[in-house]
């Protein structure tokens, strides 16, 4: 008899503990994301209010009325589950607590098409079983709001919160009542609602402040956005946001349209006239065509780079060869140029090699005057910063013989 009493007391205590502290007894519900909660809530919209039940059909996040027809409810619901005061027609629907338990998938995962009604508003309001109370100001989509006129109380209601609008009205999902069924709408809610959050809500991404680490910290689908990796410096024309203001190459640093340069045109500002540019190790300098001559100097990127500016498509009217002696091999033609980059010029022609001056006829290039290399260079000498181009001065090939005297080669395009 004594043993029986001890066993009885033990089981009584276990039951009480299980009810009052179920988290210790049963652990947490399966993980769910907020989007999964809203998806299930949305799938119930349009089904009827069904006292003490929770069962409907869905196709993804939408209700599936073709498989499970929405029922209807009449009267005003109260009383026991077996003998309610309202009448339901059909086999699908939910009351408010059945709806929330199903959408939250508590205590266990169960398909929405399985009828299951484990909790009432009394459970949601009076206990923290698989959920906890949170302040109103902490509400997020997928949380719930529950009110009850006491514990145990007689009346209550619970709903799934989605968001607040610009007036402070609350957008939510609920099994509203017998006449209206499960709805999604905006409504003003009384302030006696308690806010509760399901346990074990997970996020594929936990939002935090975006920092420069190659990760999407704020979970907005973008990595290191908002200039978090930017160290401010003077904006220059390089396709980057140097001054970290969110704009690229803004202001006056990119007066010329570098991106307009194509492989068949030296029209760098898109005005239809061929412009004259020179590229060197420390920068690119251009003279925009005026139609009858060339304008003043416009500076380009400070440093040429191997990824772009060394490629033929970026060559402009003139490319001053750097110490690397850039040469793009092509078929040798009789044009005074070492086209095949073999160190000889016009070796296929009968050119007089002791000719002291070589004149190029550039009349096929619109807007570019005929000029001699030597003349052209000396004319432009004051424009091209002598500091930058000093090293090339002594290497100019002046006689057009293809041999670089002291060694500079010029590519004419």
């Amino acid at each position: 008899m004594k043993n029986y009493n001890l066993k009885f007391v033990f089981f009584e205590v276990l039951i009480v503990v299980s009810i009052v502290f179920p988290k210790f007894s049963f652990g947490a519900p399966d993980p769910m994301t907020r989007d999964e909660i809203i998806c299930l809530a949305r799938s119930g919209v349009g089904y009827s209010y069904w006292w003490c039940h929770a069962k409907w059909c869905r196709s993804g996040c939408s209700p599936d009325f073709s498989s499970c027809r929405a029922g209807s409810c009449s009267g005003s619901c109260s009383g026991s589950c077996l003998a309610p005061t309202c009448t339901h027609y059909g086999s699908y629907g939910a009351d408010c607590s059945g709806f929330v338990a199903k959408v939250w998938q508590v205590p266990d995962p169960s398909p929405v098409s399985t009828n299951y009604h484990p909790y009432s508003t009394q459970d949601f309001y009076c206990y923290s079983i698989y959920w906890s109370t949170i302040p109103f100001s902490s509400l997020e989509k997928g949380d719930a709001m529950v009110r009850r006129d006491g514990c145990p109380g007689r009346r209550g209601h619970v709903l799934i919160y989605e968001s607040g609008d610009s007036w402070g009205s609350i957008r939510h999902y609920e099994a509203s009542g017998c006449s209206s069924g499960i709805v999604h709408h905006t409504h003003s809610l009384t302030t006696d609602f308690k806010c509760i959050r399901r346990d074990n809500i997970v996020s594929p991404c936990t939002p935090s402040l975006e920092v420069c680490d190659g990760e999407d910290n704020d979970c907005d689908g973008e990595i290191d956005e908002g200039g978090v990796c930017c160290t401010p410096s003077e904006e220059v024309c390089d396709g980057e946001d140097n001054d970290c203001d969110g704009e690229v190459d803004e202001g006056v640093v990119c007066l010329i349209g570098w991106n307009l340069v194509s492989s068949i045109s030296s029209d760098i500002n898109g005005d239809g006239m061929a412009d004259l540019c020179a590229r060197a190790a420390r920068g690119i300098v251009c003279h925009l065509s005026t139609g009858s001559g060339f304008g003043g100097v416009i500076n380009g990127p400070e440093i040429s780079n191997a990824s772009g500016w060394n490629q033929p498509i970026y060559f402009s009217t003139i490319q001053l060869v750097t110490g690397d002696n850039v040469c793009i091999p092509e078929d040798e033609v009789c044009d005074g140029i070492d086209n095949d980059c073999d160190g000889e010029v016009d070796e296929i022609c009968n050119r007089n090699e002791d000719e002291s001056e070589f004149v190029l006829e550039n009349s096929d290039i619109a807007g570019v005057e005929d000029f001699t290399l030597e003349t052209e260079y000396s004319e432009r000498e004051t424009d091209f910063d002598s500091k930058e181009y000093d090293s090339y001065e002594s290497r100019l090939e002046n006689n057009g013989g293809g041999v670089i005297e002291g060694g500079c080669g010029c590519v004419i395009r």
Partner: protein
Amino acid sequence: MKLKLYRFCKILGKFMYVKNNNYKFSISGFFLLLLFASYTMASINHEKNIKSPDVVIHLPWGSGGLYAGGVDPNESAGQGPMSFTINSYGEIFLLDQLNYRVLSFDGDGKFIHETPISNGIFEDIEVLDNGYILLLDRTNRSEVVVFDSYGRELNHWKLIGDGIEEGGLVTAMLWRSDGLWLEYDHEHSVHIVDSNLMPCRREIVKGRISLDTKKSIVASLYGSNSASIAVIDRNSKKTIIEEKVFFDHNLYRIIWLDWDVHGNVYWFFHLVDRDVETDFPIFEEDRAFIFKTDLTKIGGFSSPFVIVPREQFREFRVSPDGDIFQMAFTDEGIKILKWRWE
């Protein structure tokens, strides 16, 4: 108050002297008296702005007759009459949807007429001068239904379309001189039918369309204890004027926004302070502000009748001539209160 007056008189006495058995004020006493008079006048002026509300209609909870349908069931949302409206004659119409009817009263609250309606899911009401009744069904059939005063259904228009993605997010139904407008998500208004009740091109304007239809107002919460308002010209879509209001309590929500024929703007708020530990409200009241067209504040009042667990879609209405009505729910029934201001 008596204590304050006594103290004031005591202080005032220090600024008086006796000459030829007559009480005379010193110069400083005179100015003090002037200050007191100004303060008193200012107080009176403020008090004159708003009078206590008249209870125009009082209906106990119940069904049929002069009762209002209300439910406060378990495991679902409670409900009372969802909405009411005032027509241009000052008549009051109560949407008693749980009793499947619309009740009409004259401006003094005398019962006039009962119009039966087809179901109990309507949430908002507008009544035209010809007696036609427009009822809003947001979530069931998602439509506006028009009845004549005998309850015959004359027409209906679907809500979903340009500017309205979901019926449940319609936040107001507004009858204007050019027809019916629906406000969506407190963000924009959509023109649904013209003044002849014919469907029209769905023009969308930002905010809530004004009574004269020439402007709209965008209102929103602004921080925890303030709200902003901007008047926008309907044609140019440019902001004409902006204003902010600040409260000495936390602002829970904006309740309603309305106009009268003079262009005055009426703005209603629900203020709530919550206990830091329990999060339950420790202070709660509705507050109203009245502005001139240029958003200069000209009046205001506080109402202790906040919403209760019986849901309602409309709480305040303003008649075309500027009378303010509030539908308040109590344990006994509903009251239509008329707030007067001068």
